[in-house]
């Protein structure tokens, strides 16, 4: 069931030898009054450099927990997790990844520009450099002209784009996103999906993406990890057969439909097993 995926598809990165993320028999167990909760149970997963991997599953399947474990926001109870060959803590301290939360988490007292500058300032770069990078990143998410606005003056979709610009500012090799578009309306979501896809096309950073939308997972990913709750585990890993170059029209093709169907079946399997 937890078949480790030892042969990831050929990566697009310069150093394909070392996986971006390697998870070995990782478990996260929360103690509770009656029975301990297995948020993650013996999960194995390899993510190669340059891959776009989506974690999908119903709530409680541990997809967010897995992401948080990789980001060192949550400790593992047993097993091993390596990020670019380092422990999650080392990777975090080496500022090896960017993390986009479900909510934009922008600081209301900072302007849009100053929000994007925040991680760069923490790294101790000089102000002019911070500002130049932040302006460039805002341009990449099409927010030029909004530098001096405050977060509350922006729509939800724009706020989340600011948070993506903020996560990309220090050029992390690994980008982790926890249902970043979950709270947005479908039209905004489609547009941001398209922009994110183009961004990945251009820069080929490794992306780990948590979602509960099948369409989003299929449209964006090179590989889809289907998860199931109680205990949180990986059910199935589906390789995408779609071309790397993608556009929204692709969603009406039979190929897309077939993939979406496969993911849906995988999710249904987990549900069946759960009830048995």
């Amino acid at each position, binding site marked *: 069931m937890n078949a480790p995926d030892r042969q990831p598809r050929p990566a697009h990165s310069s150093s394909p030898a070392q996986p971006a993320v390697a998870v070995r028999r990782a478990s996260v167990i929360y103690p509770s009054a009656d029975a301990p909760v297995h948020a993650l149970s013996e999960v194995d997963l390899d993510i190669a450099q340059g891959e776009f991997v989506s974690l999908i599953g119903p709530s409680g399947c541990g997809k967010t927990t897995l992401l948080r474990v990789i980001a*060192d*926001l949550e400790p593992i109870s047993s097993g091993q997790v390596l990020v670019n060959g380092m422990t999650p803590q080392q990777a975090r301290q080496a500022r090896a990844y960017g*993390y986009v939360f479900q*909510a934009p*988490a922008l600081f*209301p*007292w900072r302007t849009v520009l100053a929000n994007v500058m*925040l991680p760069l300032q*923490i790294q101790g770069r000089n102000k002019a450099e911070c500002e130049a990078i932040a302006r460039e990143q805002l341009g990449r998410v099409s927010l030029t002209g909004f530098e001096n606005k*405050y977060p509350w003056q922006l729509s939800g979709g724009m706020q989340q784009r600011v948070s993506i610009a903020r996560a990309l500012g220090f050029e992390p090799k690994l980008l982790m996103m926890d249902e970043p578009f979950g709270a947005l309306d479908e039209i905004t979501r489609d547009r941001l999906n398209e922009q994110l896809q183009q961004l990945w096309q251009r820069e080929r950073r490794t992306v780990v993406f948590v979602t509960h939308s099948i369409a989003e997972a299929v449209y964006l990913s090179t590989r889809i990890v289907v998860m199931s709750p109680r205990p949180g585990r990986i059910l199935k890993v589906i390789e995408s057969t779609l071309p790397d170059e993608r556009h929204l029209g692709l969603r009406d093709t039979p190929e897309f439909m077939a993939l979406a169907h496969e993911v849906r079946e995988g999710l249904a399997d987990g549900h069946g097993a759960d009830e048995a």
Partner: protein
Amino acid sequence: MATALMKPDAITLKQRVLPVLSILVAVLLLWYAGCVGLNSAGAIERVLAPKGPYSVGDLVHTTLNMQRPVLPSPHQVAADLYSSLVDWPLDSPRNLLYHAAVTAQSTLVGFVLGTLLGVVLAAAIVHSRTLDRALLPWIVASQTVPVLAIAPIVLVILGSLGFSGVAPKAAIAMYLCFFPVTVAMVQGLRSPQRIETELMHTYAASRTQAFWMLRLPAALPFLFPSLRVAIAAGVVGAMVAELPTGAQAGLGAKLLTGSYYGNTVGIWSALVMSALLGLGLTSAVAGVERLVMRRGSAAQ
């Protein structure tokens, strides 16, 4: 949200100034009525009875303009205040502004020290569980001791150490100032949401960076209301400190001499002056708040 920022000047005038003015008128009317009531006995005995028959109009007029009334009338207080400001130079002990300045000085020194102490204590409490448990009960307990009891002790001890003048008075003002600041800052420094602290965590921000870039700015909306409370408490502290020393100057000393000599008009004008001082200092703090918080905070 943005519409709330538009300037409703006309509305403010109607909604804010009018209610305040009508209360003021009501207070003045009550005050005059109180004057007639409280002063009539004295007025009849000392002024009117010796002269023979008198009318109600005479009675009212006399009660409102007595030499040493039980309750001086508002226009007497206003006249005394005005004459103290206009008829005497600024450095004369007869000028109430001189006393207000003396009190303001110890208040401000105490306020600045108290704010610093409050912020430092709050930062310590927020960063250390041990200090949280050790300090907070003592800080709360410190405020249950009446400042009137503490003031003489502090003055004696600091006096024996050679501190006199502003320092002891500022110390007592500080004693009252730091408490609201500490309580508000503990709450404010703890106000960042989990997602915000986790964000800083993913950036591998140090505790110092998290403090300056997240906790402190997040605490500012909590700090300013507490500063307004603190400076008002500071005025009280400074005036109380002026009482037991037989201080020569300050609004507290002025109140004390007024009561020694039965100069009720003097007491009341000192009281009005201290109210104006408190009001002035509080609105100065509010002005700084508006200046600092103009940016960004309209979100909440």
